């Protein structure tokens, strides 16, 4: 009887560990720009990310992954749920919708809904209490904290509009020009930037 129980528990632990490992690898392998750029509507975002210090453009090459900023980090279940939901929603838009119709430049106005403060603070852990940042930064971060929990709450991305994707508006313009007058020039710029980042899986258009 005892032996049976022992075998059952061992199998349970084994299966549990295998499932955890599979989940871990699944989450890990679908978390960086290599995975996200599979859908080519993400090309301008990946290019702008690569231009930014968050995308490894700094001297030491340190970089954050897409999910580090674009998923909630306060709760592991919320993290997995949001990741799964985004996967299904975005995957179906890619396959069955028309991503070319999306106005990405306009979407930037809603950045607070897809950049998570707890993600920023995972890395910038001491930011809100540090005395070594500039006086202005300290003043504004204090303002951020004083509004937290009120109906006027602001977020990291409210002010840091370009963080993570340097020159996002420029690169989005290369792909879908805001102004008619620049169409030809933007085409040329797009071609240049696609050449530069082709080795990151950016698709070269004909």
């Amino acid at each position, binding site marked *: 009887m005892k032996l049976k129980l022992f075998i059952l528990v061992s199998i349970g632990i084994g299966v549990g560990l295998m499932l955890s490992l599979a989940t871990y690898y699944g989450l890990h392998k679908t978390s960086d720009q290599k995975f996200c750029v599979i859908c080519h509507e993400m090309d301008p975002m990946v290019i702008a990310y690569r231009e930014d210090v968050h995308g490894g453009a700094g001297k030491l090459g340190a970089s954050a992954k897409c999910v580090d900023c674009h998923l909630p980090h306060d709760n592991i279940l919320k993290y997995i749920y949001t990741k799964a939901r985004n996967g299904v929603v975005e995957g179906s838009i890619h396959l069955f919708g028309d991503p070319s119709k999306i106005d990405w430049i306009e979407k930037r106005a809603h950045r607070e809904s897809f950049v998570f403060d707890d993600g920023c603070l995972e890395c910038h852990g001491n930011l809100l209490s540090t005395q070594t940042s500039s006086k202005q930064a300290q003043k504004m971060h204090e303002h951020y904290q004083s*509004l937290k929990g009120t109906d006027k709450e602001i977020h990291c991305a409210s002010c840091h509009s*370009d963080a993570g994707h340097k020159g996002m508006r*420029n690169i989005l313009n290369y792909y879908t020009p805001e*102004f008619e007058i620049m169409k030809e020039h933007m085409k040329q*710029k797009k071609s240049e930037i696609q050449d530069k980042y082709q080795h990151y899986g950016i698709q070269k258009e004909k």
Partner: protein
Amino acid sequence: MKQRAQNTFVVLCLSLCFTLLPLTLFAGEGSSSPAIKGRETVTITQELKEKYPLKRVHAKLSLECLFCHDGQGNNPEAFKAVRDKTCLECHDSKEKLANRLGFIGKANPHNSIHDGTRLSCDECHYEHKESMNMCAECHEKEIATNMWMRKTP
């Protein structure tokens, strides 16, 4: 025996003090606001909001009068217009602002072939009233039809 109990009691009290002391210091640090302490304050009333409305983006951030009008007292009626330096405390540098609109190229209002990055912010941008597009003084047609710029924020 009694002596020993007394000693234990003293040691316990001392260790309690040493544990609590840093805690009280820590709590004090969290609740005070050193940046604002001892400064002038302005209460933003509905009347003030109507008289000196903020730009949409700045209003969304609930910016306060003294964030910009720092060191100008606490009477909004007596506040003076701020210089570029104040704007650039948050907006960094004119070069950086120019790069954000880099796709516009030679016609970039923040780095134009006429003025480079030398223009003052308030040639076009006003905080408490509608901004003005200086380029439109000559390039009337292109601005009116939104050919290369949107409304000046």
